[in-house]
């Protein structure tokens, strides 16, 4: 389920939530209400403000949400600065969904899942986590390790504490921040170190997303714990223009991240040049 159309449609921003000092979550609906299109967890969409720019963002909300789609976006460039300044009611152009989703209905089904995220890297996994919680009976034990620079940079913290941590979900969340901070009595460590300390059973299937350096050390930690590359999935971010494998920008080896990814299993990445 991808859309080959490179001509966008219109959407309207119906809600804006400030998550952290530099991350906001935008709710987008079609002009006549409802979702602009259907998607699966891990797929992306091109959002644009005419005259400012167009970029690929992962769809943060779960497809099980029927009324709208959400995008958690960090302020870090020209377009994202603009998006952070806009108000509710602003129209945007949107096209998608693009890319290969996480295999939630196939390879992940029935498995014990371990989600590992750093910073805004929780955004693409957020969609999968809520999908899993809405179809809880299809999956085994769920663990989430999530870390950020400080407690103020933890994305979706209200949802994590008030919804995900609800005992009925049978889910463990392990939060950590990079260095000690007043008002934080939780764990302090970098994500890869914490993963090693927690010492997970290597039968789990892992979904990891975060800064490239975090992913690199998480992979080392998981290997030490006995995980195989075939058990670990990630989602990648490269510059994209078309979204359909033609403009050439996100090409790595013989793959295009926009259409062959953004979700890859680590054994698939192992045979590609490490240009990401």
């Amino acid at each position, binding site marked *: 389920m991808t859309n080959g159309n490179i001509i966008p449609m219109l959407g309207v921003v119906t809600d804006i939530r400030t998550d952290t000092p530099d991350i906001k979550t935008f709710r987008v609906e079609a002009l006549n209400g409802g979702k602009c299109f259907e998607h699966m967890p891990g797929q992306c969409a091109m959002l644009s403000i005419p*005259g400012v720019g167009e970029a690929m963002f992962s769809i943060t909300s779960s497809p099980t949400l029927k009324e709208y789609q959400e995008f958690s976006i960090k302020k870090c460039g020209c377009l994202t600065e603009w998006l952070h300044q806009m108000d509710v009611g602003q129209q945007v152009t949107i096209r998608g969904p693009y890319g290969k989703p996480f295999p939630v209905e196939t390879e992940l089904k029935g498995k014990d899942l371990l989600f590992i995220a750093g910073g805004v890297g929780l955004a693409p996994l957020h969609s999968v986590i809520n999908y899993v919680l809405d179809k809880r009976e299809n999956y085994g034990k769920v663990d989430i390790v999530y870390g950020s620079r400080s407690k103020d940079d933890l994305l979706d913290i209200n949802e994590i504490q008030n919804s995900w941590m609800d005992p009925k979900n049978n889910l463990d969340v392990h939060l950590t921040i990079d260095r000690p901070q007043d008002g934080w009595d939780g764990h302090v460590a970098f994500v890869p170190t914490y993963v090693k300390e927690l010492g997970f059973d290597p039968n789990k299937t892992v979904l990891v997303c975060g800064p490239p350096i975090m992913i690199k050390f998480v992979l080392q930690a998981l290997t030490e714990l006995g995980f195989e590359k075939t058990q670990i999935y990630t989602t990648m971010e490269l510059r994209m223009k078309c979204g359909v494998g033609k403009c050439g920008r996100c090409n790595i080896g013989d793959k295009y991240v926009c259409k062959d990814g953004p979700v890859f299993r680590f054994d698939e990445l192992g045979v590609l040049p490490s240009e990401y």
Partner: protein
Amino acid sequence: MKKLPISELNAFFARVAADQKLYLPVEQAGQVDFGCWTEDATVRLDALKTVKSAKGAFFPQVEDMLRFHTQGKNIDIQPTELMNEKFVIFGVRACDARAFELLDRVFMSEPQDPFYAARREHGTVVTLACGEPEASCFCTNFDIDPADPAGDVTAWLVGENYVLRANTEKGEALIADLADSDDDVSAKQAEIRAIAEKLPFANLNLNGFDGEHLMERFSDPKWAELSRACLGCGTCTFVCPTCQCYDIRDYDTGHGVQRYRCWDSCMYSDFTLMAHGTNRPTQVERFRQRFMHKLVYFPSNNEGIYGCVGCGRCVDKCPQSLNIVKVIKALGVKADD
């Protein structure tokens, strides 16, 4: 076969151009490129290679995609109309004609690119066998026959006449009113092939350039040395008939925003630049990407067909004398390795 005496060429062009646009090699400001036929155009069918390739006929250097009008928080989208008029491109050489087939593999594969597909549907390609392939040509390495190019119509210059063969229905319609000919082009073809065979780059060793050896070619330490002189000017990309990477940009016209796409180059430092940095930080990685794509990644995805057609434009035009032939020679492996 049909026949068109050189003396009647202009009358034929005028007939074609009466009801559709006709593009062919024309000289302007001292250089030959594909341009629109007019009565006073300096047509240069004798020029072996246009400076830029013929790809612009189907994949223009700049192409409008959309127009936006914004008012307050509201946006209005006006899609650009797709090409809906027939046109002819005349005098395409065998290398550029093969390049169309390679571009088809990119733009016509699912999901089809609507802009390219519309141009392809409305265009008729007339190819012209190469009179005299030159030293920088190496198309024969890629199983291209300069004496028998593809296209809707194939033409040969034999003596004082063009001899034309229609290869498709579109081609047949274009040359239907020309006089029949029983001319034999095989002597002419033998002459062209004899020249091509003896060219300096006629026998390149492409062994080891394939998906199976992807990481070996990628990891070759010679890339650093090979790319050292590269200026990152992108000339190779712009003259290349198979380079198809593009950018999408917005332009404020004063009455709205025009979204267009334009040729881009993986040789440029901002090609992959994102807010958090770039995955190809130096010219070594960018240079490697261009050649790896043509010689390894493209064939890996396209049944071994290379993304180069041996036109030799990069050989002729690179200000630093870098080119794909040097790369093939430096990185090629012996058949028994």
